Every structure is written in C-alpha cells, then in structure tokens.
C-alpha cells in the first residue's frame, strides 16, 4: 500500500535565510526597483478601524442601491448564467464596448468600438500600454506629481521617468517643450506622455483648454503618443467641461484610458483602452498573456446595468455627494491648516493636494498623525525622485463630512505643532502660524517666510493660500 503524504500545513514552512538568498538570486532585474519600506509598514496602521483615513482613493460605494445590484445580478444569473460564467473574448464583449461608447459620448467623444479593449480596471490599462511601448531605459514623461499607482508600473518596466511640473492649469506645457527639446538633443524620443488632464490624481488640478490644444498639437507635430488617463472626467463639481485630449486629437496620437471604477464600482474591475489599431493589436496580445480576458461576469452586470438606463442618474448623485464633501474639506482646510500651507481646489475628482512648509516631511508627519488616528498619503508616493516630501494627498470621496472635518482638524493640529516647533528651533523666523491662525493676507505672506520661493525650491506648486482661496 502506498503511503499518502500528509496534506501540507495551512502555512508553508518558514523561509530560511538560505531560501531567501536562493530566491533573491532568481529575482528579475526589474524587481530591484519594486521596493517595500518602513513606510509601507506604517500604512498597515492606517487600516485600523479607529483611524480616519483620508489616504484611500475610494469612491463611496455605499451609495449604490443594493437592491439594484441584486436585481441585475439575478437577471444575469437567470438569463445568461452559462455565458456569464464562461471565458470571453480577450478584447471584451461588444456589448461592454457599447456601454463604453456611451460613457465616452457623455464627454463628447465618439470612439470606434473596434478601437476599444476592455481591461481589468484602469490599472491594467496603464500596465498594458506600458508593456506594449516601453523597453528598459525608454523615456516616459508624466506630471509632477503623478498618479501614485502609475509609479510602480513605470518602474517595473524600467522606464526612465521624467516628471514635468504642474501649476493650477495642469502640466506646464512650456516645460514639457523644453524637456522634449532636451531629449531631442540627446537623440532620445519619449515613448509616451502620461497625463490625467481632468482633476488629476493626486494634484486635483485640470489642464486648461489652451494647454490641451497645445499638447495635442505637440503630439501631432512630433508624432508623440499621449496616454490620457481620464477616470474622473464625469465627476465635475464646478466650472465648464473641457474636451478630452482624445476628442481634440481624434485618436491618432492620443491613447485613451477609461474606467467604470469611479462612476459605478471599482470592485467590478472594468476599465478600457482606446488606441489606434496597430497599438491596440499589441495591447490585446499583451492582455491575452496577462489574463486571457476581463471578468465576463462583471461585463454581463455592466451590460445589464446600462440597459436599465439609469447610470447617468447615479453619476449625478455621486457628483452631488462628492461636491459637498469637497466643499467640506476646503472649509476645514481653511479653518485648520496653518497660513503657510497651500492646497488645490479641484473642480472634480476625488483628491486635494496640500503642500506644507518645506521643512516638514509628510512621511514623518504621517507617523505623528497616526498617533491622532488620522491618515493621508505622503507626497513622495507621487514622485519617482524623492520629491514631494512636503506635500500630501487628501481624499474626500470615501469619507463622511464629519470624518472630513474631524480628520482635517487633527492633521491641522499636528502640522501646527511642527510649525511651532520649527519656530522654536529657528529663532528669528517670523511667526507663520499661531493656534488662531488668521487667514494669510498678501502683506503677511510677504513679510513672513518666502512661502512661494520655498515652494518653488522644493518643486511643489502653490495654488491656493490658506484663507486666500476664492472657493
């Protein structure tokens, strides 16, 4: 009788040092840029229930009617169980693409459904485009700061990432042109320019119409690819809608990335790429290698959901909720952040980007903030070169008004302690913040620390001063 080996223990046997070394020898070169750090451990604390986390990037899915989800999933089960449980085409179902065309049409775009590939969330869209276009050492241009989730993607493909400064009108196209000239002089051609022109994550700023037009011109003149990431375009709380780059360009040099995550649900993991056919063909091959196809089950759900026709109403509901939360956060920032702080006032999206005096490192500040049970994303996550140390990303979509007010008040307190300490450490520095923290007037800012110059020196972009905001 053959002895059946005992089933393995629920956890693997412990890794010995030798094992670690053995694996380490096998790691691909690209993993050396995939880093873990003490900071990541710090983020483990943000998950504790008593912590008010302004660190997430979460839409508020609690607003989605549960009965609607139940009804639609029941219909999918009753009418299409076999197909919904089966593999699907790598590029996605035509019906899903019809929904995507509808979403893009809502922002004035008319893509050819054949130019679309459905992806597993917008994150995979970034990954597939980078996989398709970037060899190790190739230049990828993006904003400074850029989407923190794009940084590990670009790094894992060993791109040479160049970040272009932004101001209140989005990416500085003049600086982009300088960079392009420099690269041309070096004989290098960037593989693509990655940008989120509307309500950018993390900065919350929007690329102005003039700059959009100029960016598309540049792309066409120099035959450069622009990767437009537009997860938040429909979440606009004020101002006039601006045409997406894809619309201005017509899809020759702009690759468009979209997602259902922010207008429906991130849990369904549905995003998409719209690209010129030759690029698309490679993206589809890359996707096949990555996961064969996007979840058919959730594609069936989306098809069903769109068939009911209420998707725009839900987006309108979200816009109303998020607008209120954005306003609450701006009010709270004005009340609780010291005069030397600046922040963006986004016209849409999920994030506000706040910048503190440059002597404050927001990674250390996070440790202090966690002692007060509040969390944010330190700015360095949005840079490849260690900049952004004095900035932080604050999310207002996934938390209630009360949590926003309390969270910002707590962060304001810890910042004020740092500012006061700095003043005590550097006698002679004029007071920038007192507990009462009167709104900054131009005169006071001029007399005080040279906030703008400091900000420039640390390569952040001051947009609104505390109290100086127009709302």
């Amino acid at each position, binding site marked *: 009788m053959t002895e059946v080996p005992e089933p393995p223990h629920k956890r693997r046997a412990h890794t010995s040092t030798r094992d670690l070394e053995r694996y380490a020898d096998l790691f691909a070169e690209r993993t050396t840029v995939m880093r873990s750090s003490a900071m990541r*451990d710090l983020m*483990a604390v943000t998950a504790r229930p008593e912590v008010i986390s302004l660190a997430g990037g979460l839409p508020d899915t609690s607003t989605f009617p549960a009965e609607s989800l139940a009804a639609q999933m029941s219909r999918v089960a009753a009418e299409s169980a076999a197909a919904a449980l089966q593999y699907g085409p790598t590029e996605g179902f035509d019906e899903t693409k019809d929904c995507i065309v509808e979403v893009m049409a809502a922002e004035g775009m008319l893509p050819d459904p054949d130019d679309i590939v459905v992806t597993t969330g917008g994150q995979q869209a970034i990954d597939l485009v980078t996989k398709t276009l970037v060899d190790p050492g190739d230049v990828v241009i993006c904003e400074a700061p850029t989407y923190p989730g794009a940084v590990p993607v670009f790094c894992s493909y060993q791109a040479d990432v160049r970040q272009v400064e932004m101001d209140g009108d989005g990416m500085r196209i003049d600086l982009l042109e300088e960079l392009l000239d420099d690269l041309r002089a070096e004989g290098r051609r960037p593989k693509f320019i990655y940008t989120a022109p509307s309500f950018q994550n993390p900065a919350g700023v929007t690329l102005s119409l003039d700059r959009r037009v100029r960016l598309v011109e540049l792309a066409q003149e120099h035959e450069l690819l622009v990767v437009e990431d537009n997860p938040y375009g429909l979440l606009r709380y004020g101002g006039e809608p601006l045409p997406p780059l894809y619309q201005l360009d017509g899809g020759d040099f702009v690759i468009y990335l979209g997602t259902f995550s922010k207008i429906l649900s991130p849990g369904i993991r549905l995003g998409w790429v719209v690209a010129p056919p030759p690029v698309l063909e490679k993206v589809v091959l890359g996707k096949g290698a990555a996961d064969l196809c996007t979840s058919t089950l959730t594609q069936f759900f989306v098809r069903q959901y769109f068939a009911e026709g209420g998707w725009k109403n839900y987006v309108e509901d979200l816009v109303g909720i998020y607008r209120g939360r954005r306003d609450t956060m701006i009010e709270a920032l004005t009340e609780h952040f010291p005069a030397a702080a600046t922040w963006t006032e986004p016209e849409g999206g999920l994030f506000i980007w706040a910048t503190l005096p440059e*002597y404050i490192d927001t990674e*250390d500040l996070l440790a202090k903030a966690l002692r007060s049970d509040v969390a944010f994303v330190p700015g360095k996550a949005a840079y490849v070169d260690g900049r952004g140390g004095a900035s932080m990303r604050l999310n207002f979509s996934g938390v209630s008004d009360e949590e926003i007010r309390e969270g910002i008040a707590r962060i304001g307190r810890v910042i004020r302690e740092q500012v006061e*300490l700095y003043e005590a*450490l550097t006698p002679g520095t004029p007071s920038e913040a007192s507990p009462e923290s009167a709104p900054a007037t131009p005169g006071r800012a001029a007399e005080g620390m040279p906030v703008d110059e400091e900000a420039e020196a640390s390569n952040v972009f001051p947009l609104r001063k505390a109290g100086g905001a127009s709302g």
Partner: protein
Amino acid sequence: MKVAVLKGGRSLERGVSLRSAARVEDALERLGHKVVPIDVGSDLVKRLRAEEPEVAFVAMHGVGGEDGTAQELLEILGIPFTGPDAAACARCIDKVMAKAAMRGAGIPTPDSFAFTQTAFRELGAADALADLEGTLGFPLVVKPSRGGSSLGIKFAGAPTEVPGALIAAFSYDDRVILERFVAGRELAVSVLGTEPLPIVEAIPDGGDRYDFEARYEIGRTRFVCPADLSPTERAAVTDAALATCRALGCEGFARVDLILAADGPWVLEANAIPGLTDTSLLPQAAEAAGMSFEELVTRILDMALAPSAA
C-alpha cells in the same frame, strides 16, 4: 500548552509585528501547542482572563509593544511571558535611559544629548544647539528616544539640517537624542538567555550610507552571518553586547546593535523584542548557530516558563 501570541496593537511597527507573530504562531502549531492569537487592543486583559493561557509569547514591536506596557499587564495577571521583563523593556525602548545605564556600566556608547519638545518650546533649548553641535561634530544622528525601527532616524550633515531632522524625530516621540555619528561596521548580536548567537553584519549595497530604510530591505543591504571578525574583535563585540544585556536587565532574549569602529565597539541600542520575521536578524543568527526557528521558539518559551534556568 496553551500559548497566547500577543501581536499588532497600535504601534507604528504593527506590520512587522504581525509578520513576526505569523511566523511564531506557525512554529508553535508545528510544535503542537494550542495557539491563541491576540491582536492587542482595549480588550487585552479581558481576553487574557477568558483564555487563561499558560504562557504569553510577546511578538510586539515598537512603542506600545516592546516598551513594557503589555509586559506590566502580564506581570499583574501572573501570566509568564517571553522576552525581558517590563522594567527591562522600558529601559531598552528608551534610548535616553538605555544609554545612561550603559554609561553607568562603563559600556562605550556614542556621546549624545537628549531634548524634549518642551525644552525647545518653553526653555529656548535652540540656543544651546550650536554648543552641542560643536561637541558632537557633523554628521550627527537625530533619533526619537523611543522606537525600535529606523523610523524617524535622520542624519544631519550640517547645522542647517538639524531643525528638519529634529522635527522629523519629534514626529515619533516627545523626546529625541542627538548622537555623535560613529563610522564603522554595523553589527548585531542576538543574545538568547546569556548565550550570544553568531554576530550578523549589515553591509549596505552601495547607495546612500545614510539611508536607514535600505537596511530593512532585501537586495539593498547584505547580511553576513557569522560576521567576518578576528577573534579579538569578536570577543570585544560579544563582551559589549553581554554587558549591555546585563546593564539593562534583559533576560530571555534581546538584540544589541553596535558599530565596530577603529577604536573598538560602540553600542547603539538594545532591542528587547527583536523582529522574528523571515528577514529579521535574530532568526538568521539562530540559524547560523544551527538552530531551527522551532528550536528558537522552544528555547524562548522555556526561558519564559523557567526564567531562573536562563
């Protein structure tokens, strides 16, 4: 045996603690013990009373974990626990107290000065900074007084960098130390009971030698165990480590971090509850001594149950 594994909690080193604990729990189960994992929170006493473990394995790191707080409760409840007692933990976690104890025992530890926030805010301590900087020289190291990991530790290469480094360190604790920087080889001696384990050397792979984060990352720092030392060096380093454990009252286990400079070893600190993760130094040292992780856990547990035998 019923073993409560205390882990997590609100410490900034919660993540490391959870990894240490996962490995300990696994080993304890393999050894046939009944494991009661407890993520430490406000219900700790209640849970310990309800579970009535025969012994507690403390796998917590950082302030709130290895500073003696949980250990004090365990002492009150009469539950034997692993690692040093509450008083020793409190001494180890606080670099000001630890260094005072070391100096008292004649153990070489780099010169340092301690400050509270109050000293700067209310007593004008900033005016004394220049004098200290003259005494310590540059670069100097600024550290939160309490804390077990690299968090908040900064180098200041010039006087202008001191305020920023102080603010960073004060983010982690209300008291910080400014310490003379000692250049040399970075060594760690793990001590089990009174027995020193093979010495580990951390060798940063190029890059910034002031980048503390790199030390905790595979691929950016190489760990050599046993460290390549002459018999004289090894004896001096081991003696300093054992003397440190005695001075701080560490029984059970501890890890002593030192710099081996041209003029001999300088002790930086002792960790009352060193990490027990896959990449931690104590398990590496035990392995170099021919001890499996299960054996290590058994030894630690035995010492908790019969401290006099340690």
